[in-house]
């Protein structure tokens, strides 16, 4: 157990652990920075949209972007990601087009998952970004199973699961990590400890001093990392991936971060949380810290960033306009597809009945 909080840079972006500093090319550094910025600007815009009633629901990652964007960078595109709902940055980092992203949010006719899930529940097979589920932590055993399967097939893929600290309290967290330990599955279990599970503070999830130490129960290493330090995230994830590929099994990573926004667009943290707390965490802002690091390194200038910013805003506007132009609903019959590989008689019957109903009474209005 390492109870030290692994860091590479401090709050001012100064390298305090050069021995851990990952070697990353300038373009990649800027891509990392750009993705954080992208997520932040997308989140901002979408929350605004939601408040205007133009979007049903939204979940933002404000202040937590470095956790999953850093982890994703440390993995290969062929490695599998099992995200929760606060890791869309991982998809964007892997190149998920913003237009498609927006179509998912609207659940419209161009939504690749056919309007079947709430906003933010993306599924992107070609990016190895597996379908997001609302139930907390249900994806963890899948990551373990995928990692285990890769090992059985003698491939060197690893699989990463992301989940909040609330997820560590679930029963499936336990069985998953235990299986990962027993079968030496090359899985990386990334706990995004953002301090809150809706209104429930971290202190109510467990009285263990850290989440990382839960690894001891499974005989696997547990690592504690500053989740707002993207370089530290890259460092520990790369180490965990290397361990996995070497056949040494799974790693649990606790990434300390903070949920600066509301849990979701349905939530109002003023009821349960002292506003000084999120304020305090602004000091550790991952974007800010990374910007200072890049600036000091000469890899980012104010002009470059301003250009990025502008570009991103234009992309968002374009994507939004694109999404809002699409037919708002997927075709009726799509509701009955993909329940099974083929459509059995009872679903064919139901589909026909619905078609007849709509033909008779017209489309549903709400």
């Amino acid at each position: 157990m390492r109870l030290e909080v692994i860091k590479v840079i401090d709050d001012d972006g100064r390298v305090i652990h050069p021995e851990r500093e990952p070697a990353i090319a300038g373009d990649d550094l800027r891509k990392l920075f750009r993705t954080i910025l992208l997520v932040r600007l997308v989140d901002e815009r979408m929350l605004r949209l939601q408040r205007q009633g133009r979007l049903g629901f939204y979940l933002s990652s404000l202040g937590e972007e470095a956790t999953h964007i850093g982890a994703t960078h440390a993995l290969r595109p062929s490695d599998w990601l099992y995200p929760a709902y606060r890791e869309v940055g991982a998809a964007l980092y892997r190149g998920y087009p913003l237009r498609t992203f927006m179509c998912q949010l609207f659940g419209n006719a161009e939504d690749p998952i056919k309007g079947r899930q709430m906003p933010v529940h993306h599924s992107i097979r070609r990016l190895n970004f597996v379908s997001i589920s609302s139930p907390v932590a249900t994806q963890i055993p899948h990551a373990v199973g995928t990692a285990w399967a890769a090992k059985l097939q003698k491939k060197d893929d690893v699989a990463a699961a992301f989940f909040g600290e609330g997820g560590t309290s679930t029963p499936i967290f336990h069985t998953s990590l235990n299986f990962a330990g027993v079968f030496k599955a090359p899985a990386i279990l990334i706990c995004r400890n953002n301090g809150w599970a809706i209104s429930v503070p971290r202190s109510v999830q467990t009285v263990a001093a850290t989440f990382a130490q839960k690894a001891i129960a499974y005989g696997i290493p547990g690592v504690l990392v500053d989740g707002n330090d993207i370089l530290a995230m890259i460092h520990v994830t790369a180490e965990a991936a290397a361990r996995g590929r070497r056949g040494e099994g799974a790693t649990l990573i606790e990434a300390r971060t903070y949920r600066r926004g509301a849990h979701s667009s349905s939530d109002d943290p003023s009821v349960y949380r002292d506003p000084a707390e999120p304020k305090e965490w602004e000091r550790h802002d991952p974007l800010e810290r990374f910007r200072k690091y890049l600036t000091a390194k000469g890899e980012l200038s104010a002009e470059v960033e301003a250009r990025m910013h502008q570009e991103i805003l234009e992309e968002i506007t374009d994507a939004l306009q694109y999404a809002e132009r699409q037919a708002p609903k997927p075709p009726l019959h799509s509701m009955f597809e993909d329940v099974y590989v083929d459509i059995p008689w009872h679903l064919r019957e139901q589909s026909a009945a619905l078609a007849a109903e709509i033909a008779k009474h017209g489309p549903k209005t709400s």
Partner: protein
Amino acid sequence: MPDMNIIQAVNDALRLEMRRDPRVVVLGEDVGRFGGVFRATSGLQEEFGADRCVDTPLAESGIIGTAIGMALYGLRPVPEIQFADFIYPAYDQIVSELAKLRYRSGGEYPAPVVIRTPVGGGIRGGHYHSQSPEALFIHVPGLKVVCPSNPIDAKGLLASCIRGEDPVIFMEPKRVYRAARGNVPEGEYTIPLGEAKVVRQAKTGIRQVTVLAWGAMVHTALEAAEKGAEQGYDLEVIDLRTLLPFDVDAILASVRKTGRVVVVHEAPRTCGFGAELAATIQEKAILSLEAPILRVTGFDTPFPYTLEHEYLPDAHRILDAVERVVGF
């Protein structure tokens, strides 16, 4: 009698029962400080303290499992499962333990736990914030299942459940949590389990159809009854209120009167509670039936997001079925 919605009525029932009986405790995710994501437990922690209105770790099986242990010791826990869609991690504790404890201990160890949980669609909640899993509990001997449609029933039924000796799944129709209002009597009262309510009587003697519904669908059925009246249909709408044990007498009385039945529910059709109602009715009253019993239900797909109003039964779909049974 104050005008209340269902959330307020549930809150009122909890508060009164907690005042009345110090053994009553509330536990769940976000129920304490926050007062519940739907605010149904709002103010309880202030009044009764953090020991009697408890925020728990994120683990439904822990909530139900420890509630059982509390009940065995003599408390009256009323756990909340934030959405019924998240009840499955606790399914083992409910099915293997809660439902069977009284029986398998020869009556020695009853565990009167009342599990409150919001159910149903229509709030743009997609797969995991819309489900109506009543059939998955009705099929399990040892559990009672209740689902009110309005604040007056919600308050009286919840009080009955908490004072009762059996475990209950108490399903709250979240779509009408705020929309269904009523003049709720002040102070304590109970409404007995197992009694349905005829919320609209068929009176014309012609083109009469019994419509069985519960929860949010009662309102849809009443809407259909309004619309249907214009078209000359006379619907007798029964709000089942308690799904198990259901009020077979009230149902059969209406079936004998109308000869035609439509069952409405949001859950998928196959093996839903509608199947049980249809099977029971035809078994006990086939000679009274003038037409097959039709089911107007959600489809046998996961609950969709965008197309939820295509998925959910509405007045049109009910009236189509009414038309079919009348025209049979």
